[in-house]
Each structure stands twice: as structure tokens, then as C-alpha cells.
């Protein structure tokens, strides 16, 4: 009989992490739409490339063809299928964005925690640094770094995108740590002799998680926009199917915007980017409601 009863705590945990969020998402239609869009792209990135083969051989006889049954989104300047490129490109786009958000979060949490916990001179210096990072707009910085250091794969790309983006999250983490530091449970943990390690990971981190989670989606969105921008300027030549590169070729190199029948080629990467970003915005709103109960209308 004990096997079939689920312990009360676990039920509570399930309820909080799965059932309640699901209810909230059901009520907020936009957030639901956002989640669906994101799942769609996730699917596209994971199994898409397996389903739709990519043929990168050039076939200039087929270039700039408008949408047809064989090529639902037309062909590019080299006669290659646009739809296949979009599907394959999604993997690059999402992995770069994910890595960028990951690195950003790591740096931000580290800096924020150290500044908040250590206090004093360390905090003063780190705060100045955070301030500096926040006052200079990140895109030009990324442009320069991208130009000086060669970006060769998704990891380096993600790293470059994260170098100047951790400022606001670091600030949020720092103020959260500062306010938590004063609370009793930290005092209690200290008195019990639990080390800094324990305090950081078991007490502070869980309280900071909501900020990180929401910021993650936003950072990914920003990374997508920035990465495509960098590629559009031709600074990141390593992947030809990445939507940003497609845009670069279409607009700057092949001049496809002047050819009305090649519109699908030009518009596809733009539409993909817009859709993905929209999904991100809507879902982030829902995520905010889940993690911040006060916002639930």
C-alpha cells in the first residue's frame, strides 16, 4: 500500500513546479503561445536537421527561385533550398544563444555574489566595474571584440556575446544577496558553522534562481538579436546556414532585396528571427508570472 501513495512533500513539489505553472500558462494565452513557439523551434533545432537533409552544393540554374512544391521557401543565390537552410540554421542560432545566456549567467552570478557577500573594498570595486559595463552599450563592444578575435565556433561566439551582457543580472544578484545577507537564516547558518560553500549553494542560490531564470530567456533573446547583427555585418563567417549569415548573403552580397521573386529568400530568415523573438517575449512574460506570484492578475 505504501508503494502506491506519493509522499505529501513530493506531491507539493510536483504541484508547484508542474501543475501551477501549467494553470498559469493556460490562463495567459500569450505566454502559452510563446511556449508553443519556443517548443516549435526547439523541435526544429533538435530533430529538424535529421528530417530535412541539407544539400549545400551550388546549382546556379536554380538560384533565386520563388516558393514552389520542391522548395517551399524558394532558393538562395546558389540554388540551395531555403527551408533546409532555415531548419539547419536553427540549431546554430539556438545553441549560440543558449551558450551566451549560460556564460552571462555564470559571470553575473559570480560577480554579483562575490560583490554582495564580501562587501567592503571588493564590493566597491566590483560595483564600479558593473557600473562601467552598464554604461557602455554592449553592441559596439561586441562588434570590436568580434572583429579583433576570430570567432570560430559556437562556444567562442557565445563567449563573445556574453562578455558585456552580464551587467544588469550581476546588479540584480548583488542587491538580492545584500538583502538576504541580513536575514536570519543566513545568520543561523553561520552560527551553526555551515561553511560559505553551503551558504552560497543551499541558501543564497535558490533565492536568486528566479532572477536568473527570467534573465536567461531575455539574454537568449538579446543574444539572438546581437548574433544575427554581428553576422549581418559579416564579422562571423563560420556558419553559412545561420540565419544571420543568410541575411548577410541575401542583402549585402547577393543583392536579393532588389529581386522581387527572391523575396521568400530574404524574408525567411527575418521571419524566423522575428517569430523566435516574439515567442521569447511572450513566454518570458509567463515565466515572470510563474516565478513572481505578485504579478498574477
Amino acid at each position, binding site marked *: 500500500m505504501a508503494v502506491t501513495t506519493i509522499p505529501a512533500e513530493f506531491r507539493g513539489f510536483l504541484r508547484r513546479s508542474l501543475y501551477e505553472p501549467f494553470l498559469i500558462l493556460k490562463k495567459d494565452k*500569450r505566454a502559452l503561445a510563446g511556449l508553443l513557439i519556443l517548443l516549435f523551434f526547439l523541435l526544429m533545432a533538435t530533430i529538424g536537421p535529421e528530417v530535412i537533409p541539407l544539400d549545400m552544393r551550388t546549382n546556379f540554374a536554380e538560384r533565386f527561385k520563388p516558393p514552389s512544391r520542391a522548395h517551399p521557401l524558394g532558393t538562395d543565390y546558389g540554388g540551395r533550398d531555403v527551408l533546409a537552410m532555415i531548419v539547419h540554421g536553427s540549431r546554430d542560432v539556438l545553441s549560440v544563444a543558449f551558450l551566451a545566456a549560460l556564460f552571462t549567467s555564470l559571470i553575473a552570478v559570480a560577480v554579483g555574489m562575490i560583490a554582495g557577500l564580501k562587501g567592503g573594498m571588493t564590493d566597491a570595486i566590483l560595483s*564600479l*566595474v558593473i*557600473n*562601467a559595463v552598464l*554604461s*557602455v*552599450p*554592449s*553592441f*559596439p*563592444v561586441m*562588434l*570590436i*571584440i*568580434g*572583429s*579583433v*578575435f*576570430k570567432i570560430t565556433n559556437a562556444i567562442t561566439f557565445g563567449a563573445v556575446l556574453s562578455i558585456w551582457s552580464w551587467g544588469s543580472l550581476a546588479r540584480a544578484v548583488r542587491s538580492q544577496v545584500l538583502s538576504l545577507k541580513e536575514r536570519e537564516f543566513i545568520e543561523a547558518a553561520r552560527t551553526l558553522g555551515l561553511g560559505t560553500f553551503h551558504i552560497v549553494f543551499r541558501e543564497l542560490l535558490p533565492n536568486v534562481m528566479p532572477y536568473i531564470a527570467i534573465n536567461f530567456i531575455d539574454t537568449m*533573446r538579446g543574444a539572438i*538579436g546581437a548574433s*544575427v*547583427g554581428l553576422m*549581418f*555585418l*559579416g*564579422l562571423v563567417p563560420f556558419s553559412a546556414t545561420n540565419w544571420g549569415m543568410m*541575411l548577410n548573403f541575401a*542583402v549585402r552580397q547577393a543583392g536579393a*532585396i*532588389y529581386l*522581387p521573386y527572391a*523575396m521568400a529568400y*530574404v524574408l525567411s530568415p*527575418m521571419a524566423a*528571427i*522575428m517569430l523566435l*523573438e*516574439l515567442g*521569447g*517575449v*511572450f513566454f518570458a512574460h509567463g515565466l515572470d508570472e510563474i516565478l513572481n506570484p505578485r504579478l498574477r492578475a
Partner: protein
Amino acid sequence: MLVILRRIGIALFTIFVIVTLTFFIVRKTPGDVMQAWAMDLLDTYSMTYEDALAMVKSWYGYNPNQPMLQQYIAYISGLLKGDLGKSFIYKVSVNKVLIRALPWTVFVLSVSLLLSFGIGVMLGMAMAWKRKSILDPLVTAYASFTGATPDYITALILLIIFAVNLRLFPLKGAYDATVNPGFTWEFIKSVLKHAALPIAAYTFEHAASWALAMKGSAVGVLGEDYIMAARARGLKERRIMIHYMGRNAILPLVTSLAISMGSMVGGSTLIETVFSYPGVGWFFGEALTKRDFGLMQGLFLFLASSIIFANLAADILYSILDPRIKLEG
């Protein structure tokens, strides 16, 4: 006073950090780029490879014979004298490039900022004042859409629709090459036509978010006692909306103005590239793609410093506008 000085100090410190970082980044300029420039010089002027390489390095103020520290000091002193470096592609000083490009960027950005802020604020006030109108859902939907779309994509769409297909606006440049610059109506008309799309791109992108911000702030203000008290005093609705609600609601937005300026400048590279508009951003983009590190570095420093000072100015402006703030630490 003390607080203003402190703020200025922080700003200067930030710029100093940026300068130092840039210095070291340039040191890391990949050797192959320098070699490429040297080869380019070789072709244009006949000189030995070593001479060419040495010349390239000197363009950067990069004297490998001097110890790093001395190079650094030379660089800083150069900066203080206003020497931002030299451009490789154009063979002139960065300052010269700036003089040509800056007016266009300033023109477009300031008009865009004014337009988007002005339109946004008025929309926001109207949205907050009339609670149940069609304006609200329309603007909110428009805002999510533009908020999600990166600015260069909005720019591209505008370019494709209006310049390429409808041929209503020109495709590139700041003014028609056939028109002579001067205070003629011809010239002014040409300038406006060429600036129209970039300004439209910025404004479309940002107006809605200003509207939402203003609405949020205004709705908060509407709940305050003094609004009801103003009604009780028999003041005209319009007067209350503008002077009692508007003036109070706009205050928090002023600090956002500075941040917004920063992001507009940051985005100017892409937008100016899309429209081939010869402002600072466009030159920066050229410097990047053509690996002109001298121009890149100089322009970047200029951009970063101006944004930092713009932030500072906005802080001070805010304290003047809101009599309650006395620039507390």
C-alpha cells in the same frame, strides 16, 4: 555639488577603463591583419615588407621598440591632446572622419529620439487618461511586436517596402550626390528624403515602448490625491492631464532617455549600414568589416565617451526637473 563631482569622477573612471581596455585589445590585433595591411601598402607604394609593416605599426602608435608602459603613456597623452588615431582605409585622422560623419548621425538620432519620445509620451498620456479606448490594446500589441523585432530588421523591412519596391525613398547616402550642399531648398529636401527612412526605422521601433512606459507612469500618478484635488478645484480636464498628470508622470522617463540614447547609438551601426547612411555607425561598420583598427578604436572611444557623458547629463537634468530630488548620494 559634491555629488555631481562624484558622478563626473565615476564617468571619467569608466572612460579610463574603456581606454585601457581598448589599448590592450589593439595590442592583440591579430598579426595577420597587420600583415594584410602591410601587403596592401606594398602594392600601393613600393617599399620593402619590413618598412611597410613598420609603417602599419606606426599608424597605431604601436612602436614595438618602446616598452609597453611608455607606449601606453604615449597613447594616453595623445588622447588628451585629442588625437584619436588614424584611419587605414581613408588615410586620414579619425577626427576628420568624425567631422564628416558625426553631423549626420546626430541629426538622425536627435530627430528620431524627439519624435519617438514625443509621440510615445503623448500616446501614453492619452492611453492613461481615457481608460477604455481602442488605443490601449492597439498600442500594446504594436509594442510587443516592435519590442521583439530587432531594430535592423524593422529597418530592412522599411527599406524593402519603401525604397526598393515603392521607390518612394532613396536607397543610400545622406543626400543626392548631384545636389550641391548649401542652404538651398533643393539640398534640404534631399537631406530630408534621405534621412526619412532611418528616422522612421528608429521611431517605429521605439515609440511604442515610450508610450507604454508613459502609460504605466501616468496610471500610477492618476491614483494620487492631487489629481482628484485638482478636479475638485474645478480645473479643466486638459490642464490636469498635461500639467498635473503629465509633468509628474514624465519624470521617471527622463532617466530612461539616457539609456535609450545609449542603445540608439549602439544600434546605429546596423541601421546606418542597412540604409547606407554615412554616419558614425556606418563608418564604424566599414572599419569593422575592412579591419581598419585605427578607425575602429577611435570611433569606439568617441562613441563610448559620448554615451557616458550623455548619461551624466541626463542625471543632472532629472535633478533639475524634479524639485524633490536634491541629487542625494
